[in-house]
C-alpha cells in the first residue's frame, strides 16, 4: 500500500516537473554558479564552455554568456518553473497561468522594433541589429511585483544604456517610452480593455541610462520564454514589475513624460515612477512586505528593492510620496 501511494505520488510529481527539465534546471543552476565564479577570474567570454550538456537547440542558447558579478543578488534564484509559470502578462489573460498557457502562439522570430522620436538613428530594427550577442551578460536581479510578491531571476541581457547610446538620442530626448506587441490574433487578453492597449511604459532618460537598466533576452541561460516577454523586455529591478515592459515592439524618445498604461488606468494607485517603496502603500494593500515565491514567510520589502545605494541619487530632492 505504501508503495502504491508512492507511485501515485511520483506520477503527480513528474506531471508537474518533467524530469528532463528538473535535471536541466539543477545542472543549469550549478552551471550558473560556475560561470559566475569563472567570469571574473578567466574573463570567460561569449562562446566559452556551455554548461548544459543536453542543450536542446534553443534552450541553452545563452548558456555561455558571462555573468556580471557586479549585479548578482545574494538571494537564491527562484525555481525556473515558478519564474516561467507564474506571470502577469495581461495581453494573454489576467490569470497568473494564462501567459504560460497562451503565449506560445506569439511569433518572436523574426522580430523588429520601431525606434522613433528624438533620436539620431530612427528606423525599424531587426532583433539582431538591436541586441548584439557580444553585448550580452548575465545579471541576477530581485524582481518585486506591485502585488507584493517577488522573485530572483538570472537574466541574460544588454545594458539598456548600450543600446540607447547606439541609437543616439538627441538633446530633446528627456524620456523613453516602450510599447508592447498588441496582436489580437495571438493575444486573447486584448479582447477586454483591462488596460488601454497597446501596453506602454516609460522611463526618464537618466533612469533608462542607469547601469542597472537591462534589456533582457533570456533567463537562466535560455532564450526568454514567451510568457516572460520574449524576445525582448525591459528589466528595471528597483521599480515594481509592471515597469519592466515585455515583448517590446517600439522605443520612442520623447521630450515630455509619456503616458504609461497602469498610470492611465488608475493614476492614484500606480505612479509614473513606481519605485519599490515599503513606506508608500498601494492604496489598497501594504507594500511593507512581500512573499518571495517559494518561501512561506513574508519578507520585509527593501527601499528601491534593495538597490537604493545605486539608484537613490536619481531621485535626490524628490518627494517620493508624491512621485510614487
Amino acid at each position, binding site marked *: 500500500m505504501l508503495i502504491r501511494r508512492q507511485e501515485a505520488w511520483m506520477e*503527480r510529481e513528474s506531471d508537474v516537473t518533467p524530469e528532463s527539465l528538473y535535471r536541466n534546471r539543477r545542472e543549469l543552476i550549478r552551471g550558473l554558479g560556475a560561470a559566475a565564479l569563472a567570469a571574473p577570474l578567466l574573463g570567460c567570454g561569449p562562446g566559452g564552455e556551455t554548461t548544459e550538456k543536453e542543450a536542446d537547440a534553443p534552450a541553452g542558447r545563452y548558456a555561455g554568456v558571462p555573468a556580471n558579478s557586479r549585479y548578482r543578488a545574494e538571494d537564491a534564484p527562484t525555481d525556473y518553473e515558478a519564474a516561467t509559470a507564474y506571470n502577469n502578462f495581461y495581453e494573454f489573460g489576467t490569470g*497568473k*497561468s494564462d501567459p504560460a498557457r497562451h503565449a506560445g502562439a506569439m511569433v518572436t522570430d523574426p522580430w523588429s522594433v520601431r525606434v522613433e522620436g528624438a533620436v539620431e538613428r530612427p528606423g525599424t530594427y531587426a532583433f539582431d541589429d538591436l541586441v548584439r550577442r557580444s553585448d550580452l551578460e548575465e545579471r541576477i536581479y530581485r524582481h518585486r511585483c506591485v502585488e507584493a510578491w517577488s522573485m530572483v531571476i538570472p537574466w541574460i541581457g544588454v545594458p539598456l544604456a548600450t543600446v540607447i547610446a547606439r541609437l543616439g538620442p538627441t538633446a530633446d530626448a528627456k524620456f523613453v517610452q516602450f510599447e508592447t506587441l498588441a496582436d489580437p490574433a495571438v493575444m486573447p487578453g486584448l479582447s477586454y480593455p*483591462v488596460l488601454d492597449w497597446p501596453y506602454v511604459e516609460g522611463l526618464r532618460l537618466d533612469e533608462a541610462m542607469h547601469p542597472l537598466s537591462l534589456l533582457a533576452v533570456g533567463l537562466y541561460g535560455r532564450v526568454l520564454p514567451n510568457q516572460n516577454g520574449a524576445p525582448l523586455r525591459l528589466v528595471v529591478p528597483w521599480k515594481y514589475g509592471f515597469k519592466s515592459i515585455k515583448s517590446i515592439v517600439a522605443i520612442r524618445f520623447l521630450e515630455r513624460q509619456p503616458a504609461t498604461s497602469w498610470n492611465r488606468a488608475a493614476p492614484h494607485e500606480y505612479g509614473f515612477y513606481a519605485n519599490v517603496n515599503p513606506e508608500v502603500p498601494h492604496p*489598497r494593500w*501594504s507594500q511593507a512586505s512581500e512573499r518571495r*515565491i517559494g518561501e512561506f514567510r*513574508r519578507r520585509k520589502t527593501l527601499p528601491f528593492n534593495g538597490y537604493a545605494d545605486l539608484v537613490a541619487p536619481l531621485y535626490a530632492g524628490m518627494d517620493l510620496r508624491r512621485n510614487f
Partner: protein
Amino acid sequence: MSNRAPLAIGKPLLFLALALPALWLVWQWLAFAAGAPHHLGFNPQETSNRFSGLWALRCLLLTLALRPFSQAIGRPWPLALRRMTGLYAFAYALMHLSSYLGLDLLFDWKTFTRDLLERPYIGFGMATLALLLPLALTSTRRAVRRLGARRWLALHRLVYIAGILAVSHFLLLAKGDLREAQIYAALIAGLLLLRIPRRYFLRDIRGQRAQGPANG
C-alpha cells in the same frame, strides 16, 4: 409534492457538496506541509485566500438565492436549506480569515490591525464576517423561539447587507480585471431586486383582494 422527499436527498447531498471545497483546501495544505505535490500553485497563500473567500461568497449567494428559487418552483423545501448554506458561508468566511491571518500574515497582529484600519477592502471583509456572526449564533430553533419570529426575521435580513458588503470587498480588492467581481455583484443586486418588488407586488394583490373579487 411533499416537503420531505427532495429534502431527504437534497440536504445531505448539498451538505457533502459544500464540504468538498473545504476538504480539498485542507488536503492541499496538508500535502504542502508534508512536502508532497499539491495544487496550491506558486503562491499558496494567495490561492488559499482567494479560494476560501470565493466559497464564502458563493455560499452566501446560494443562501440568498434559495427563497427566489423556492418561489420559482412553487415549493417550500428549498427554504429549509438556508440554515445549512448560511452556516457554510460563515464557516468559509472563518476559514478565509484563518487563511489570511494565520497562513499569510502568520498572526502578525500589527500588520493585520494596520490592514484593518487602512485598507477599505479588509474593513469590508471584516464587517461582513461581523454581520454573519450573530446570524450564525442565532441559527438554532431555540434562538428563533427566544427572539420571537419577528425579531429573528428582522435580524436575519442582515444577510442581504452581508451580501452587499461581501461583493464590495471583492470589487475593492480586484486589480485591473473586475469582471468576476462584477458578475457576483450583479447576482447579488439581482437577488436584492427580486426581494423588493415582490413585497410591493404582494401588497397590490392584497389591496385588490380587499376591494373586490379575486381573479382566480
